[in-house]
């Protein structure tokens, strides 16, 4: 089961049954208490929840909001992938100047909060007046997500290549490929396959961060739920439903990432990982 516990014997098993029952009572007790409190405030009234079983809030609010959310996330994934590919290769460049510039850009955007970037682009683009004002929120959300997640993708490319066994590059050089060719034909393709699961779980981050669009007036799912909820006096219920939609999609993406991790292992010399590299790494290897 885990390193901490041995396989339980008969005494431990009996004790565990009692602890399990006691713990169940506590957990269920907390849940019941919360529900009772909600009920006392009238938040469990069927009238507040029922609208979500009808078509109107979904057709008029939640689905259009979800479409906007998926649109922003979809565009950002593509642009972030391009950004990440360019700067990831930049960080692997033989030229010290290119490596330095790419490294600084990537580290900068990984340290700046996404919301700060979104607000900057939102107000900046609004002031420049080069875009249709109705497009400004979407572009601001996409740019903010692109710079942050693109930098994460760049780190994925770099750490993916560094995570390959040295023999891959040595073999490529031995058969007469040049350094750049080895990178392009041998190392980066394998790194990307090994990184697929991590890319899938980064999609969860992108999808969650689209909700920041609320603050820059982008009409995404959270904003739609809030508008519906404040118009119908069931804001709490609307937020819970919106959260559930996010949870279902993100849970599916997480499962996909785990499945990919099990499947791509044979197709790369690298080690598949399910999480994007972070600023703090335990060993110098990443």
């Amino acid at each position, binding site marked *: *089961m*885990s*390193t*901490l*516990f*041995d396989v*339980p014997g008969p005494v431990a098993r009996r004790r*565990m049954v009692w602890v*399990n029952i006691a*713990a*169940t009572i506590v*957990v269920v007790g907390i849940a019941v208490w919360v529900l009772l409190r*909600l009920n006392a*405030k009238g*938040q469990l009234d069927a009238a507040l929840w029922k609208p979500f079983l009808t078509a109107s809030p979904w057709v008029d609010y939640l689905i259009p909001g979800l479409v906007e959310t998926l649109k922003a996330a979809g565009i950002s994934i593509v642009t972030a992938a391009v950004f990440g590919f360019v700067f990831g290769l930049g960080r692997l460049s033989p030229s010290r100047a290119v490596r330095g510039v790419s490294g600084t850009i990537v*580290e*900068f955007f990984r*340290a*700046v*909060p*996404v*919301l*700060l*970037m979104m*607000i*900057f682009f939102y*107000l*900046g683009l609004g*002031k420049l007046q080069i875009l249709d004002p109705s497009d400004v929120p979407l572009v601001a959300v996409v740019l903010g997500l692109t710079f942050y997640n693109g930098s994460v993708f760049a780190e994925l490319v770099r750490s993916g290549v560094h995570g390959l066994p040295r023999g891959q590059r040595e073999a490529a050089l031995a058969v007469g490929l040049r350094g750049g060719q080895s990178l392009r034909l041998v190392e980066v393709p394998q790194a990307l396959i090994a990184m697929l699961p991590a890319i899938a779980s980064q999609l*969860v981050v992108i*999808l*969650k*961060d*689209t*909700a*920041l669009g*609320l*603050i820059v007036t982008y009409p995404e799912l*959270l904003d739609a739920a*809030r508008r519906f*909820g*404040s118009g119908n006096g069931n*804001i*709490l219920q609307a*937020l*819970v439903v*919106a*959260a559930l939609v*996010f*949870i279902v999609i*993100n*849970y599916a993406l*997480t499962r996909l990432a785990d499945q990919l991790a099990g499947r791509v292992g044979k197709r790369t010399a690298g080690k598949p990982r399910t999480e994007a590299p*972070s*600023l*703090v*790494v*335990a*060993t*110098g290897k990443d």
Partner: protein
Amino acid sequence: MDDGFLQQYLSLFDEFDVLAAFWVNIQLTFFAGILALILGTLLATMRISPVPSLRWAGSTYVTLLRNTPLTIIMVFCVLGLWGQLGITLSPDFTTNFFRLAVVGLTVYHAAFVCEALRSGVNTVPVGQAEAARAIGLSFWPAARLVILPQAFRGSVAPLGNVLIALTKNSTVAAAASVAEASSLMRTMIEFRPDVIVAIFLTFALGFVLIVVPIGLATTSFSRRLTVAR
């Protein structure tokens, strides 16, 4: 960059209290960090315990909370907890919003703290536990002397990452009407659009200056503590 620009730029700091705004973010990070560490440790204990119901409760919490956008949690704290359920954490308006934001940041990041601690336990090879049992240590001595010290060392790096994420995410408190750095940046840009890029770079650099030292410190801490295997 002529003298006039510099004058314009410096006048910003007389007009707006940038440091005070960052101080709010640091306070949010500090309080939410400590509370998330406590709640996260409790959740991690539940998730690695041999009791099925506790494991289930812990993993349900983590699955639900870490797949929910922080912005929803923040909006929920203000519009749901305060607006609908009438939960007030302070008679003072500003303090109330601040505390609600701390609650939002805490419940969200506790899920990540839990995962960081759990990944620390997972870095300990089974052989360590087997060796501990082989020399006759029972559960508590084995956990206290052999497994948990190594697990703690293994979780320093992931905990550092949670702290960095928390620092950056403290800006989302803007969604809970807390006057922190991102909302001050917005006000400043709206009042002084002439120096918009300089304002953004100031705030961005402020976060770089907070985040990078945390990253360096936890990296070196984690390397110093890491168990050679």
